């Protein structure tokens, strides 16, 4: 099979408008992946499936990954000469910047016809709150059907052009997306006859506010 760089070069040559980046994997598995442009993802996926040298006809695994906003601290060192003529001082200046988070979908593609793989492709949303729509690849590989529904259910990525985008594991009335890293689990399901410790603390939040206590008599 071609290397991932060759596949990327061919994709860029075939679709000059699409942005295709190589995401390297530093681990021992060294399974590198391609980050695809969401706007062209459908065309790129059809190319990967139908290209005679690749024929990635089997989409094995579809999964979501949550990358929350990350605070990154940059340290810049500046050398300040000592006006008294001594050793120059090194002043460290720390600046923090916010790396915006995103939601990511990862597809593992194999070829059943040519028996090679995997080619891993990724799609990323613009942010984690309001721009969470990505094109669905279910029209290309039917195998994504349930798995994209699961990603929608657990991560909240909305797949446009998915034929039947409903919650799959959680119930329909459920509001949140439990696999996100900042998900806070509800605390009203625990019940103990004599609540104590952490459960009692959680329980207090659901009690009505205490009535004004009468002032102690002098």
């Amino acid at each position, binding site marked *: 099979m071609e290397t991932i760089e060759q596949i990327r070069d061919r994709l860029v040559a075939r679709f000059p408008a699409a942005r295709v980046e190589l995401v390297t*994997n*530093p*681990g*021992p*598995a*060294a*399974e590198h992946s391609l980050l695809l442009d969401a706007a062209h993802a459908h065309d790129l996926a059809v190319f990967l499936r139908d290209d005679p040298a690749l024929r990635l*006809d*089997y*989409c*094995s*695994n579809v*999964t979501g*990954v949550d990358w929350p906003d990350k605070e990154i601290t940059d340290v810049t060192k500046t050398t300040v000469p000592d006006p008294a003529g001594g050793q120059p001082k090194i002043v460290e200046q720390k600046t923090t910047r916010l790396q915006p988070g995103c939601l990511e979908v*990862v597809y*593992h593609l194999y070829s*059943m016809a040519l*028996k090679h793989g*995997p080619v*891993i492709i990724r799609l990323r949303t613009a942010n984690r709150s309001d721009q969470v729509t990505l094109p669905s690849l279910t029209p290309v*590989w*039917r*195998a*994504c*059907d*349930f*798995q994209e529904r699961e990603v929608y259910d*657990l991560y909240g990525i909305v797949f446009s052009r998915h034929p039947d985008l409903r*919650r*799959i*594991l*959680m*119930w329909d009335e459920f509001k949140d997306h*439990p*696999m996100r890293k900042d998900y806070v689990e509800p605390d009203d399901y625990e019940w103990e006859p004599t609540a104590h410790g952490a459960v009692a603390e959680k329980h207090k939040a659901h009690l009505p506010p205490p009535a004004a206590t009468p002032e102690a008599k002098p």
Partner: protein
Amino acid sequence: MSCSDQTGLDAELLAFGRQSGPTVRAVHDQFHGDLLEVSMGPQHPSTHGVFRMVATLDGEQIVKLKPVFGYLHRNHEKIAENTTYLGSMPYTDRLDYLCSMTTNWAYALAVEKLSGQAVPDRAQYLRIIMGELTRLVNHSCLVGFLFNDLGTSFTPLLYAFREREKILDLFESLSGSRMMCNYQRFGGCRVDPSPAWLAAARALVDNFPRFLDEYERMLTGNEIMLARTQGVGRLDPAHAVNAGLTGPVLRASGVDYDIRKVDGYGFYPRFDFRVPLGAHGDTYDRYMMRILEMRESVKILQQAFKDLPAGPIMDPKAKIRGFRPKPGEAYGRIEGPKGELGFYLISDGSPNPYRYRVRPPSLINLTLLEEMCLGHTIADSVVILGSIDIVLGEVDR
């Protein structure tokens, strides 16, 4: 019932039952043309667990069928992301609770790929022995359950359970538990079997073809079985590949894809075995796949017992405490008894996985359940579901 054309009705009644196909099709009543929605499950013995099918019926024919999942959902992936790598090994037993050995193996394989861990030879052989014994357990039980769905109340299943108990006794004496074995570790296995255990396992495997012959003599040529399964739930190979079906369900449609051969993980390339393929993709072929795969598993097991080397069962460099794989990601997959079982892991260098994903074969094999059931009756949909082989612990996670 309001029917003015009396002679037409008589003709219909005379013809009634003479054509093949579903017989109870409401034609001459005021409900003609109405569709009936039947919610089958989640508390139904033939859905193999808490699984629900919402079937829309026209007369007796299924015109639409939507599977509903999630009744057993406990967010296994989130739990595993909040514990250490080794901490979720016992929990993988509960995914596919009939085949804990292979689920352990898939997870161990993915973590070994993530951390670059080597596995000694004896452990590789032991994994193959456990994996193939699990395949015997799963397939023989599946055939029993399939016949339960066909209406033979429990006799074939109990024949299968008789053999399964012998294998589970072996698992229990080795790992301490019949079904929740928790046997594999990153870089090897947990317990080394004694020579007595190996001799007992070898005797069991040598006797297994006799059970298979008996089982097949009882079941394969059965007239009701042939009538109920041949041509039912046909699946063509192009659809099956596109829908990501794997395992015996895919191979029954004639697609030659067995991860033991394609990836050659473990020591499978050293073994001589064949991959059975079906020709029709119907329920009968899916049944035969299981029988033929069991015969191949027996061949693999006999070779494994013959060649089992001596040596350590754990890599001495394997790190048990403070196990922190380097940042990176890996997708490890094996040919489980139900299909491709994969684990996708992302490490950020901490003791817990940053992302832990199970690729459940049972869930994805259900993608084409509707297409397979369309035009058949509810009774046939039960048999089709039985031939797909699902375990709800894995579907819902």
